[in-house]
């Protein structure tokens, strides 16, 4: 809600519109619960007296019990704790990747829209090109290259969390296009408006005009795009995990838990059903929220609904 300070009047209306949108509100509550549970996992673990890494070979694929509310996995770890830990990773990756993609997209969109001319043409052709390519096969190539050969420092490449950084980087590299287009569109429509003209007439430097005046007014499409991107990233992480290129065990993520569990689908279906459901729920919630935000922030939405 920090956005509220930027442009008070319409935002307050927007928020109340968002609140009236049933599915968006439900999504928001759901997401808040998920985030709270995942990031508060150590507390949950302390309450249950277990954690995500304790292995109990004598209690494999156990059904739900008081000690293990969702049962245990194929090597006797607590499934609930694993899901919460995996959720923390998936959500963090989703948010981090979406934020980086949005950042890149915003910068490109701002410069393309504000500069116009040749820069605009080149950047937008680039965006068109990236959008129209068969992305997954290309991403497979990107995800499969040997990071050591790209000149990255070995400490980074050999760190346990490298697969996390890699997926964030890959998504940022290709996910910026939507935001860039939206921001460019907003900037183009704002550029000729009076207050920008006024600012320019005052002789303000372009960077100030861009970040002080244009950016806040383009905030709503950026926010919407980012929300939608988070959902897509979570989905995408699961797909890359399915292909063996996502987040690598032992770091749990919903995607690699689901992938690992599909081999055992007929023996312990719950191992696959839970992460699958959580991915589905989180993604659909982010999509509904994004959609709701769009409606709420878009002035035309009022006419549409009315």
């Amino acid at each position, binding site marked *: 809600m920090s956005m509220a300070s930027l442009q008070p009047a319409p935002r307050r209306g927007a928020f109340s519109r968002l609140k009236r949108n049933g599915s968006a509100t439900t999504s928001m509550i759901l997401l808040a619960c998920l985030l709270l549970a995942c990031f508060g996992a150590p507390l949950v673990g302390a309450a249950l007296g277990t954690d995500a890494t304790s*292995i109990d070979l004598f209690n494999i694929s156990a059904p739900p019990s008081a000690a293990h509310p969702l049962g245990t996995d194929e090597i006797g770890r607590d499934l609930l704790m694993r899901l919460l830990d995996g959720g923390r990773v998936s959500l963090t990756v989703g948010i981090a990747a979406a934020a980086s993609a949005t950042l890149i997209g915003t910068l490109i969109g701002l410069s393309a829209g504000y500069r116009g001319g040749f820069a605009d043409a080149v950047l937008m052709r680039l965006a068109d090109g990236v959008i129209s390519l068969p992305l997954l096969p290309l991403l497979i190539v990107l995800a499969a290259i*040997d990071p050591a050969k790209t000149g990255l420092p070995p400490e980074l490449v*050999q760190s*346990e969390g490298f697969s996390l950084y890699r997926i964030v980087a890959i998504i940022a590299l290709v996910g910026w296009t939507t935001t860039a287009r939206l921001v460019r569109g907003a900037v183009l429509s704002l550029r000729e408006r009076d207050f920008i003209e006024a600012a320019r007439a005052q002789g303000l430097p372009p960077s100030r005009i861009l970040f002080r005046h244009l950016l806040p007014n383009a905030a709503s499409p950026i926010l919407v795009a980012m929300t939608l991107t988070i959902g897509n990233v979570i989905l995408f992480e699961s797909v890359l995990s399915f292909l063996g290129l996502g987040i690598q*065990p032992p770091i749990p993520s919903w995607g690699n838990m689901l992938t690992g569990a599909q081999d055992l689908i007929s*023996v312990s279906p719950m191992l696959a059903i839970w992460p699958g459901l959580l991915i589905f729920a989180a993604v659909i919630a982010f999509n509904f929220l994004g959609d709701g935000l769009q409606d709420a922030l878009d002035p035309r939405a009022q006419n549409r609904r009315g």
Partner: protein
Amino acid sequence: MRRSARVLTIWLLLFLSALPLARPADAREQLVIGMTQFPTTLNPMIDSMLVKTYVLGMAQRQMTIFGHDWEPICLWCTELPTFENKRAKRFPVLDATGKETGREGVRTTYTIKPGAVWGDGTEITTDDVLFSWEVGRHPETGVADSSSYQEIVDIEVEDERTFTIVLDKIDYRYNTLGDFQLLPAHLERAAFANPREYKNRTLYKTAPGTPGLYNGPYRVTEVNEGAYIVLARNEQWQGKPPAFERIVVKTIEKTAALEANLLSGSIDYIAGEAGLTLDQALGFEKRHGDTFDVIYKPGLIYEHIEFNLDNPVLADIKVRRALLHAIDRKAISDKLFAGNQPVAHGAVNPLDWAYYDKLPTYPYDPSRAKALLDEAGWTEIRNGIRHRPDGTKLSLEIMTTAGNRIRELVEQVLQNYWKQVGIEVTIRNEPARVFFGETVRKRAFPAMAMFAWLSAPEALPKTTLYSSSIPTEANNWSGQNATGYSSPEMDRLIDAIEIELDREKRRELWARQQTLYATDLPVLPLYFRSDAYILPKWLKGLRPTGHKYSSTYWIEQWRDGSSASQ
């Protein structure tokens, strides 16, 4: 709205009309086998691959293989050469000037069985043997493992069906032809005109349906690259006729989908050689044990953890022993694999005659492990992790192939065990091609690397344990002794085993070799991997072998047990 509903209905009808019409009339005429891989080529020499051996076991057989009892047997030869039957003879090796070098060589004579013919009726002759040798030893052919061909100094042809192999050294494996593969000279010679192009021009690739390429009970009639291979009875086959009219080998990579295909009836049988993982098979048996038989066969796949002995922590034998005492391999085998993957105490499989059963073993004993670590100087425990008094932390890294679910799970279980005795182990996995291509080959793993060796019966560990097989930059990373293990005694024993032809004396040497291995612990033995064969109740006569010559070499014995005629 009504219009859209109509459009939807039309689509639904269209899809329903596409329902499968009927399954093939009599399913038992054919056997559909499901596997997870597709062979890259059917040429017996190019790319050694388990699934290719599997298919060729039915269609293209070689001179000698190993049998169910892991002893060498003749397939196309009349009998194995021995000194007793005069088919094997020693001779002194001369150098270029004609002087004796003091070494001995051996000549072994083989006779091709009468009635040995290719699928087009052409007889298998010494011509084929010579041609195969020429292809196999040619440097540009693209044969992955050319040692079986290059070790041969000469092949002397006596007549159409009898030939003598000349080797300039003698070792205990003298009386088999190893991986020597037969090619039909009358068909393949043209493709070999340009050796560099051979792998692309071979008829096994360009016209795999050619009957003359095969000599087994079946011949390949159709290859749909990546999807399936169809085999039909070979009319020229002189041996016991096989029971099924047709064999279809279908490839479905995802094991979950493979299982679904078995249940939905589109495949009959999942081959253990490249099929479900063991925990999947166990789960499958639990649910469908009434309609399918599951056979578990431990084999020559030796799962182990190699230590980097240059690591100062691991150079201490006490630490290595402590690492082994700290893990409950029995529990892992029992709980994760229902006891079907026997714990390994050394590199030699208990099914091998050379196995020595009085090896020193390292049972699960955390207190012993702790005591060993104390002795080794890791005495101070901070935050649950052992340190040396000087503050060095006992932290090791374990690596394995990413994407191998079972290995990744076992890794995490081991990590947990080690944590309990105060050893911190971090996990870093790499895709197989980096792991094998760079890390293991160049000994770039800092502490431990988990993987498996696939060996043959009574295989000599010369490339993996001999001190001159340690890969270094200086020798251009040749050799596969990735641990860096170097023991004059081990070298001596390996040399002695190689040239000892008397089996009982060799047994004695093997016992000492295995004892030394288990005492020095250059690697941490885990278990011998098992394959799970999932058969329909009616499929009888299938016997897994446990080594690389798969069950299909005995496909004539497979039959439909439910039909009265058999």
